[in-house]
């Protein structure tokens, strides 16, 4: 350690230490720099007082204005709801069949429906509404119970075969094999016929026999031309779309055991406006019937 001295070349005081002949100049920082630092400290103290910051044993300090991130979130939610209120009110007033006359409202309904779908429907119908075996694909042009806005709204509200809703859509296919209405051989023949309708199998002898079985047992619901009927939600057996699969085993299984898929009556859980929005969204997926669907808004 040497004593502090003034460096002659620069007229600056040294720090008073020296290593191997190298000394450090005591070049001062500007004072405003110091004041800026003090100002930052003051700001930090103020910040800690105003906002919740200091953790204590059971909970932290609350801050002088009681601000919380939850409170902020609640306020944002409230503001959002207030912003959406006019749209929801307009939607509540508009009968669903009049929706296509108001493209703007429809667009908003579709957007709302998309969000509601993500919460309530994707569990069965999938994120892209493409369904899976036993859960209908909502993008295609095949509708068991009808694909107009009103039909979809009805299905959504009351569900399908949903116990506890007396307006639910309902029908029952007999378990032809299980209940021994048909012998296993007859079931096989009927399956051959059904598959031949959509070109999955040639129309051989089995299919010929199956045609007769079909005429006596199935036409009541599926119709003489096997095109199905929406009154009973009976599938069209001549198209390429299979709710429970079109392979031989799957068709045989369907005839033997019968399926009776259930969809909840969402009217019991969701408000009518949400159901309207859901119907608009499902209708907009590309297969909606009876009305032209509107252009979606870009996101």
């Amino acid at each position, binding site marked *: 350690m040497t004593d*502090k001295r*003034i460096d*002659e*070349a*620069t*007229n*600056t*005081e040294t720090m008073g230490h020296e290593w191997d002949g190298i000394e450090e100049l*005591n070049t*001062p*920082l*500007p*004072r*405003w*720099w*110091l004041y800026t630092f003090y100002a930052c400290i003051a700001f930090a103290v103020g910040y800690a007082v105003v906002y919740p910051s200091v953790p204590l044993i059971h909970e932290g300090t609350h801050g002088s204005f009681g601000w919380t991130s939850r409170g902020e979130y609640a306020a944002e939610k409230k503001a959002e709801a207030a912003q959406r209120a006019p749209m929801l009110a307009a939607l509540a007033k508009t009968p669903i069949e009049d929706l296509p006359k108001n493209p703007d409202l429809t667009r908003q309904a579709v957007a709302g429906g998309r969000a509601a779908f993500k919460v309530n429907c994707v569990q069965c119908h*999938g*994120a*892209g509404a*493409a369904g899976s075996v036993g859960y209908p*694909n909502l*993008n*295609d*042009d*095949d509708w068991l119970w009808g694909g107009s806005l009103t039909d979809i709204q009805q299905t959504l509200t009351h569900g399908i075969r949903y116990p506890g809703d007396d307006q639910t859509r309902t029908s029952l296919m007999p378990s032809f094999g299980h209940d021994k209405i048909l012998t296993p051989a007859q079931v096989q023949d009927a399956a051959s016929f059904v598959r031949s309708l959509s070109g999955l199998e040639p129309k051989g002898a089995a299919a010929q026999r199956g045609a007769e079985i079909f005429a006596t047992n199935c036409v009541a619901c599926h119709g003489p031309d096997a095109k199905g009927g929406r009154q009973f939600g009976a599938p*069209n057996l001549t*198209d*390429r*779309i299979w709710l429970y699969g079109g392979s031989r085993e799957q068709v045989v299984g369907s005839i033997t055991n019968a399926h009776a898929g259930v969809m909840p009556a969402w009217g019991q859980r969701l408000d009518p406006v949400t159901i309207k929005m859901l119907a608009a969204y499902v209708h*907009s997926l*590309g297969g909606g019937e009876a009305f*032209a*669907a*509107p*252009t*979606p*808004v*870009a996101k």
Partner: protein
Amino acid sequence: MVSLNPQGQPTRKQRPLPSALKPKPQSGLYEKKQPVFPRKIDGRFRRLKWGVMAVCLAIYYLTPWLRWNRGPYAPDQAVLIDLAHRRFYMFSIEIWPQEFYFVAGLLIMAGIGLFLVTSAVGRAWCGYACPQTVWTDLFQHIDRWFDGDRNAQIRLANAPWTAGKLARRLSKWSLYLLVNVATGGAWIFYFADAPTLAHQVFTGTAPAIAYSTIAVLAGTTLWLGGFMREQVCVYMCPWPRIQSAMLDEKSLIVTYKDWRGEPRGKSSGGDCVDCNLCAAVCPTGIDIRDGAQIGCITCALCIDACDGVMAKTGRPRGLIDYATLEDSEKERAGAPPTSHAKLIWHARTLIYLGLWSAIGCALLFALGTREHLAISVAKDRNPPFMLMSDGAIRNAYLVKWRNMEDRPRPMRLTLDGIPGARMWSEEMGKAQATRQLTRTIPADQTEPLRIYVIAPAGTAQQPLGFTLTATDAQGGTVRYDTRFDAPEGGQ
């Protein structure tokens, strides 16, 4: 890269400092700001500085008021940053967000432009065009206007706070305030229609963000230009550090020719009469005779000062002058000084100029050849394809038609590929499916349209293109290549 000491020698032994305002040796970590009272000076560089200042301020204040006719569908302000609609208008150029590379290109050009200027004329940006310099200069003129020249200013600064001094200070600070508010106020006009906004500002109906922007910018102008001044250049701005690293022995810098000036003093033989005028006029408060230093912004006011002294004492001008280190060495050895015009052109300057021009030309070319329509297609991936009841396969796309002209344009969308495929939009229905759709896109708009493409049963996965053609006189075609998904191996 060289050290900033132009002579390449150890710094001279400091003589007793002439000015009472020179920093005194002090202990402690923090130094009180030494106020700078630059003396008024006239000369060729001062007049150049006046000129540059006038041009800079004129550009800043007048640009938002220039009009530019873009027809009925677009704003008629020549330069407008329209944040709400995400457009940037600059005379005949209109930049969309996806064309932001133009802005990036301009920024790169600005960067290389600074290198170019530094390489050619040293820190001329700092000395003349930097906003900090321009506004500091402005405030220093205001000081002189209210308080008189250097000596009067020093006297007043040291005087006790009497009512008279307070009154003078308050009136000066009110003018400061006016300048600050005008500075902040001009900025907002770049972001909205200037006449409308001006009317709103004065009638108190402008949006809150306009007032807060004015307040923030007025505050920073007051702080940085009114009070921090040279402290910004020395302590806050990163650019002098970068520039110091970019200076080489071929860069023009302001140099005191000590081989000519020393020894100083009236009757000591050197040209420098030690009048100290060069230090008194310096806006950053340094003495250039100590050698090149970071506080020097090469404004050349000291050259003006010394040239005046040399004229009076009958010596040739240029004791302090723009010179390169290389040239200084030559001159020290007895060669005559090289002309500045010659010094500007050397390899580095030419390389920067070449680079700068190349980027400029590329941008101009891109600007001239860009299409004023665009298409983007987002394919539905969930589900990737849809089997219809008749076995046909349907894919869905969100097609964005973009009209970048300021008038509505008729456009046609056609399907490229998969001969049997047809498309329909949601407003149409499958029955009307076709291979080409037409619609008119409003001025300056992007219109999203959900498009369904259907292909016959058995179609395999393959490429699919959408072509968007403007069918007006101007024309233009853009294409987007995407894909058509189908079940594995057809069905």
